[in-house]
């Protein structure tokens, strides 16, 4: 026994606890393990694993930690003899060191519902930390926006917490807050700038997801807060980590579509439906099968014959197996004055769609300098350069290559064939039907997004006394993003602009964010006696943001080689942009109090001012929160409950704000109004001078259990959030002259539960850890100021109505297809063409007439036809270790969510000349046909393809996100300390009934668009191999 020190203030209740510390895997005794009672006593185990420590009272908490082992907190509960088993470091028990806003503490002592993610990221092939948030925490409903590299994840924490304001969680990267919101609309279809793609996942040490207690971040915390801590040098010795991997993306699945012959037959039906005779149809160049014969006067026969007689698999042509590679190096080290980490990364990830890629160069320098015994200086700096070549992923049949290739007729081809069938190197223009040439969309156009981001935080920390320190920091977040788009003259059928023919189109955009943040705070950390610990902080922070967005659009440059807007003709040039300035100031404080290491209290508060508030609103809005936790297992009455290692009850209530309510909506302003080429000024808004931030109230109850020597860990959270003062954009009295009025009139609630079970199933030579995360929530709109909102996106209509979840699908119910005219006559339903009723007939959809009293199918017959919110979502993780082998597998799932399949609505509408899905072979053709697909009718006069439950599908899925196998070589060289080789497969398997390419997608960040699949690039299957070298 080696008593290190024992404090003088021994109370009468103090006594000695002894025991043996062993390895949980093989039972061997562990020497050199630290056993601490914070600020009171400390001991180290001996060679035989035995330890002895003086505990102040029966309720003390032992903190056991040792190199290579996962630390544990163990309540003494009045016992004299406590034998302790420790698990290896990789074990994901409930107990972890948690990075909190005020520092690192053991998770047992956190009163809030915060999850911490500490993966061994150095092996990860993922390019940004989004992945971790999707798979390794509960309560965040997240989905990858698309399979384009770096597209990012949209995340909704504990349901939807806003309707019109910013919806994404706040990120705090090394203390620097940054809003993950769109300052400006990208010109690229469905592209959302993803700030997280600027952070290399391998630079991340720890992530904490704050699902409550976000009051500390005042008006920024309504959607939850995610703290990211980047690498720090732990030791003075110089350590070098290198990571290299390379991988291949496999081509993805495609939609089953008609072949050339079937498409011709469909076209023939469509022409017939418009009154073409068969002779007329045969004369069309797409049908005429006379092979051209050269004659002295020209060609006899169909000169376009070789143009329209191919069998092109357009969809296959847009995808390609592509490579990706990643190099990463970090160096950590220093001396007792200064410690530093330097990292460099280079990434070249090619997309599964041809000519798309993401290249990133990132560098980071984190340092910590001890200026004196009491003053130290830390800095975290990163610079990132990213270059993306993208494609349009919006619901745009002409420009989105996925849609364009799916609807492109297979008998057309990418390059021009002449009269005798010789292929030219020149590309085909938009085809007979106006559909784009997908070859051109990938090869001749440009869609580049380039960004530079500098982030730096500089902090000075001064320990005034042992208990008090103050700290001042300055943070800078500078991001510049440039977009360049060029659509060439051949291959795309542009819509004319103001009667002018458009030959080609070019767009540029520059978006600049400059955000300066200062924070000044003081900490008070005091152990009053062995029983009371107080940790308090008070501070203030100020953030000044300026975002500027400028774009230009030009058309008709003289040649496709001139791709900048300067070359467009001046008449059609368009420019625009926006500037947003906003400021945030807050005065904040928090206090943690810990009594007997059993009772934990946290109070935090932030009083916030923002430039976005209305002029008559309060200057400061205050957001308090309280949290309490009771470590029940630390009580003496639990002494005999040996199976229960830990049982903690948590309860918290807090308020947070959301000031992402528009920069200027709270002030009366004027906007420019055109008058010829000049501008006048007119009133810009019906101002609401009382406009204030949205308020989210969060009530959370949680239970943490560790059972059977920590082999089974269960964490349960139950929560109820209420969003008050929710921003609504309502329709005011028309005599105001305005369409919109922005007010805080709405409210909404989320009730939900998160369950996180992690268990070590096998603990022998083979260790198998299984983690299951299950989350569920139910969202309900409580108040909309008497209104009801319909929002349209990609042809879908979503309804927001009191008593329902936010944004449910709202459309017609379809009950199959009328097989015969008699059936249709029985229903006797009609639509109006102008004011003329037209009856449904055989082969038309049988829509449900919801309004009794009329036989009209119109907008009044719409009902709720789907709920995009999942019943359950979460992930399953597996971690298996055998000797030097490890296997990690991550599965994510979402169950019970409805999805609007925009792509299918384009491939089964049977009303245009576009190619259609294979399923349309089953369309209604003759009286008596029983089918679910209506007849082909050009222009869809009966609205058979209208937004209805035909396009709503069950979007449930379970996806094997990643599987990694790693082998740790046993090296005992001087130079190389360790080599780990690994292989990772991503997106190997997806189980779903969804008919789209990928059940995981997101359209923008607005919660109203949740569940709308605008036809994004599916996530590719990827296999990578790599190696990590430690020097």
């Amino acid at each position, binding site marked *: 026994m080696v008593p290190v020190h024992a404090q003088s203030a021994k109370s009468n209740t103090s006594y000695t606890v002894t025991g043996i510390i062993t390895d949980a895997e093989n039972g061997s005794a562990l020497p050199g393990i630290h056993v601490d009672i914070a600020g009171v006593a400390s001991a180290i185990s001996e060679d035989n694993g035995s330890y002895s420590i003086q505990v102040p009272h029966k309720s003390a908490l032992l903190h056991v930690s040792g190199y290579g082992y996962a630390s544990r907190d163990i309540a003494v509960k009045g016992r004299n003899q406590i034998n302790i088993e420790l698990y290896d470091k990789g074990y994901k028990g409930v107990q972890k060191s948690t990075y909190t806003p005020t520092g690192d503490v053991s998770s047992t002592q956190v009163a809030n519902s915060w999850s911490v993610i500490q993966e061994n990221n150095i092996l990860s092939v993922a390019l940004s930390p989004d992945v971790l948030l999707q798979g390794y925490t509960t309560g965040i409903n997240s989905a990858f926006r698309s399979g384009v590299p770096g597209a990012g994840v949209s995340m909704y924490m504990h349901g939807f917490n806003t309707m019109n304001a910013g919806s994404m969680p706040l990120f705090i990267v090394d203390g620097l807050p940054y809003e993950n919101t769109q300052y400006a609309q990208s010109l690229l279809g469905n592209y959302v700038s993803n700030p997280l793609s600027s952070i290399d996942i391998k630079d991340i040490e720890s992530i904490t997801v704050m699902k409550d207690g976000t009051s500390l971040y005042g008006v920024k915390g309504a959607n939850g807060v995610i703290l990211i801590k980047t690498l720090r040098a732990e030791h003075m010795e110089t350590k070098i980590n290198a990571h290299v991997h390379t991988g291949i993306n496999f081509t993805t699945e495609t939609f089953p579509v008609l072949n050339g012959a079937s498409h011709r037959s469909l076209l023939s039906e469509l022409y017939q439906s418009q009154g073409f005779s068969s002779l007329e149809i045969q004369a069309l160049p797409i049908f005429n099968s006379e092979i051209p014969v050269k004659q002295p006067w020209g060609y006899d026969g169909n000169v376009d014959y070789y143009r329209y007689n191919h069998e092109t698999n357009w969809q296959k042509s847009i995808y390609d197996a592509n490579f990706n590679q990643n190099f990463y190096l970090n160096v950590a080290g220093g001396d007792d004055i200064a410690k530093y980490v330097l990292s460099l990364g280079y990434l070249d990830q090619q997309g599964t769609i041809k000519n798309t890629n993401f290249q990133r160069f990132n560098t980071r320098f984190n340092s910590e300098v001890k200026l004196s015994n009491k003053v130290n200086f830390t800095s975290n700096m990163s610079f990132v350069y990213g270059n993306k070549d993208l494609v349009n992923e919006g619901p745009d049949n002409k420009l989105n290559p996925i849609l364009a290739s799916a609807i492109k007729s297979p008998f057309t081809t990418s390059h021009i064939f002449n009269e005798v069938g010789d292929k030219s190197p020149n590309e085909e223009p938009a085809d007979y039907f106006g559909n784009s040439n997908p070859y051109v969309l990938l090869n001749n156009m440009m869609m580049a997004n380039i960004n530079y981001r500098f982030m730096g935080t500089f902090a000075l920390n001064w320990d*005034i006394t042992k208990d*008090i320190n*103050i700290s001042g920091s300055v943070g800078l977040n500078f991001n510049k993003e440039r977009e360049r788009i060029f659509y060439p003259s051949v291959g795309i059928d542009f819509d004319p602009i*103001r*009667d002018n023919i458009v030959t080609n189109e070019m767009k540029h955009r520059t978006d600049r964010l400059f955000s300066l943040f200062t924070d*000044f705070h003081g900490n*008070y950390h005091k152990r009053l006696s062995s029983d009371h610990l107080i940790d308090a902080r*008070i*501070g*203030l922070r100020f953030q000044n943001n300026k975002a500027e967005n400028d774009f230009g659009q030009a058309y008709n440059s003289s040649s496709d080689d001139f791709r900048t807007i300067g070359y467009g003709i001046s*008449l059609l040039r368009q420019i625009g942009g*926006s*500037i*947003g*300035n*906003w*400021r*945030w*100031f807050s*005065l904040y404080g928090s206090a943690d109090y810990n009594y007997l290491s059993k009772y934990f209290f946290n109070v935090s508060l932030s009083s916030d*001012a*923002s*430039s976005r508030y209305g002029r008559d609103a309060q200057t*400061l809005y205050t957001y308090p929160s309280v949290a309490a936790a009771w470590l029940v297992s630390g009580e003496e009455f639990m002494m005999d409950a040996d199976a229960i290692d830990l049982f903690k009850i948590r309860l918290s209530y807090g308020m947070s704000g959301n000031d992402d309510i528009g*920069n*200027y909506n709270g*002030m*009366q*302003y*004027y*906007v*420019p*109004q*055109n*008058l*010829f*080429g*000049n*501008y*006048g*000024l*007119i*009133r*810009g808004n*019906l*101002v*609401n001078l009382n406009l204030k931030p949205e308020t989210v109230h969060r009530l959370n109850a949680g239970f943490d259990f560790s059972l059977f020597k920590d082999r089974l860990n269960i964490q349960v959270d139950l929560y109820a959030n209420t969003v008050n003062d929710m921003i609504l954009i309502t329709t*005011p*009295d*028309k*005599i*105001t*002259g*305005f*369409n919109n*009025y922005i*007010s805080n009139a709405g409210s909404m609630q989320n009730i939900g539960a998160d369950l996180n079970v992690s268990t070590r199933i096998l603990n022998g030579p083979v260790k198998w850890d299984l983690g299951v995360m299950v989350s569920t929530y139910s969202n309900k709109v409580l108040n909309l100021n008497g209104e009801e909102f319909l929002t349209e996106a990609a042809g879908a209509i979503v309804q927001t109505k009191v008593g329902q979840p936010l944004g449910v699908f709202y459309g017609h119910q379809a009950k199959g297809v009328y097989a015969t005219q008699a059936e249709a006559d029985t229903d006797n339903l009609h639509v*109006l063409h*102008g*004011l003329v009723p037209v009856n449904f007939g055989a082969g038309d959809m049988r829509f449900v007439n919801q309004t009794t009293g009329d036989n009209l199918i119109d907008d009044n017959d719409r009902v709720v036809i789907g709920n995009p919110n999942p019943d359950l979502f979460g992930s399953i993780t597996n971690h298996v270790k055998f000797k030097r082998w490890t296997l990690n597998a991550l599965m994510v799932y979402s169950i019970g969510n409805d999805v609007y399949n925009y792509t299918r609505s384009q491939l089964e509408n049977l009303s245009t000349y576009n190619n259609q899905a294979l399923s349309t072979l089953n369309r209604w053709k003759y009286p008596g046909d029983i089918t679910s697909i209506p007849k082909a009718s050009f222009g869809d006069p009966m609205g058979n393809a209208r937004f209805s439950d035909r396009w709503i599908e069950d979007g449930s899925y379970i996806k094997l996100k990643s599987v990694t196998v790693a082998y740790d070589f046993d090296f005992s060289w001087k130079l190389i300390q360790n080599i780990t080789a690994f292989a990772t497969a991503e997106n190997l398997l997806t189980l779903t009934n969804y008919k789209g390419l990928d059940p995981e997608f997101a359209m923008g960040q607005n919660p109203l668009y949740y569940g709308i699949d605008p036809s994004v690039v599916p996530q590719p299957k990827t296999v990578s191999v790599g190696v990590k070298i430690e020097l």
Partner: protein
Amino acid sequence: MKKIIYFLVSIVTLATLPIACVDTLPEEVLEHDKFYAHVDDADKAIMGLYGQFMELAGQVVILNELRADLLDVTPYATTDLQEINLNSPSENNPWIDIRKFYSVIQTCNDILSNFDQMLDENRMIKAEYDERYSDVAALRTWVYFQLGIHFGKVAYITEPIILLDDISKAREMNLDDLIIELIRTMENLPTLEDYQASVLTQQQLDGYSLKTFFIPKKLLLGDLYLFNNDYLEAAKMYRDVLAFGEDLDPTHRNAYIKNRLYGYTWTSGTPDWYGILYRDGKVDDFEALYNAWRLMFSGTTTDRSSLEEWIWLVAYDANFKPQYPFLEIFNPVGQQGGKYWLKPSQYAVDSVWGKEIQKNGFPFDARGLTGAFENIGGENVVTKYSYYALAQSASTGWPIGSWFLYRAGTLHLRYAEAANRAGYPDLAWAFINDGLSGGTYVFKREDGSEYPGDSIKITGTSPFDPYPYPFNFDARYKTTPPRVTTAWRSNVGVRGRASLPNIPFPADAVTKQDSILFMEQVIISEAAKELGFEGNRWQDLLRIARRLNKETPGAGTTFLWDNNIKKKYDQAGVVGNDLSTEANWYLPFHR
């Protein structure tokens, strides 16, 4: 402990500093406090207002024409337009959405209250204030007047709605009260004169002159008086505008002949006046026909002849918003974005313009076929709004089209109506038929010989008994010394300009009242032919109908419904909303 206190004090000090500077200045929009600092801002506000006003064109023309008898829907028309055509719009019909009207009204209110403040704080001098204030207040009056004639009532508010609660300041007002209120507003304006000193009318904007761009206040007040059956006051206002340039000598050609509906014999070249012309007076020769009347619908804002006819003309440029709405509405499908939603009603084609026979016996009114509309590929297409676009030139200042708000022809018709009711049916007759230079005021001695040329053609009962103001006109023209050349010497009248014969008083018009009632019908029927599709028809029909109903209950209803609008439906074979009760005349006012 001392350190803690220092620490707390510094926290508090630091805390108070940034709260003060947390407010930001917007760069994207202009904050209220920063506007209305100077008279230039006042002009910017007026430009903004008119830019916004231009967005009303489509709605104003559609409501005034499609609800009346001359315009009809085609099979391409949207459901919304079909509802307007039948006078039975549903609640969400965008054509009856009052919001855009109120946007203009609220902009006016905002400007006016700020102008008052600018004057109070000496940020604008009285002379600058007077003309700007009057312009804005008159435009607001015009918009209320339009709302009134369509909806029968308005929510009347003259203060800006800045906060939502401000809507409680609005009073609901019926049409009768509204007209009185609007007249009162107009009478109390600082001035009724056009801009004298504003830079807006001195300079051109992208090649567009703004001389005819701003609302003619006297004509608006005249129209309000006329609507209120206040004929003498109306006539005075119109006469004031008609008098423009009368005191100048003929060398000031522009001003001298502005608003005169003058005509000459055409010999060759492009005539610089408007009329249905036959070369060298060869009125029997169809080949000699030249429709120079319609040139008024393609003259630029700087064009001399255009300025002689147009009093209020708002041009639209193809390259700038607001967008010109009419090409889409009227043009044949595909032609310049045409959707061919609306066309001339068969009733208008057959029975309004079609019944006219020109002086030479050609059986059509060239202001209709070849003027207001043309037959393109077998379909009648409203072309009044597309002559600009057809004549489109690359030069700046060439509009894609214009909104036709007020011109000399309109003024003649309105003045005639006022003069007629004021007891001067002969004067009205002359204005409508062959003008003051025609034969009406050629007086003869008892022996049958004419008075000398310098004394005739002065409106009156004899050369020695001229009518009093505002009915006095001088049309003398004598080429032998002493020469006399007067402003009205070449006035050819509304029908005269269209090469149409005079319409004689019927034999059964015995009393003066008979003549007046007869003449009123002639005027209103002439207005259809002269002004068709320009957005006046509903106002004209409603004004007469209300007047007649007041005199003889039911007479107005018969006039509006049986004699005019119902005929359109009958001819088209549809059943429109029955307007045979006065309550049905007005559209529902959905706030």
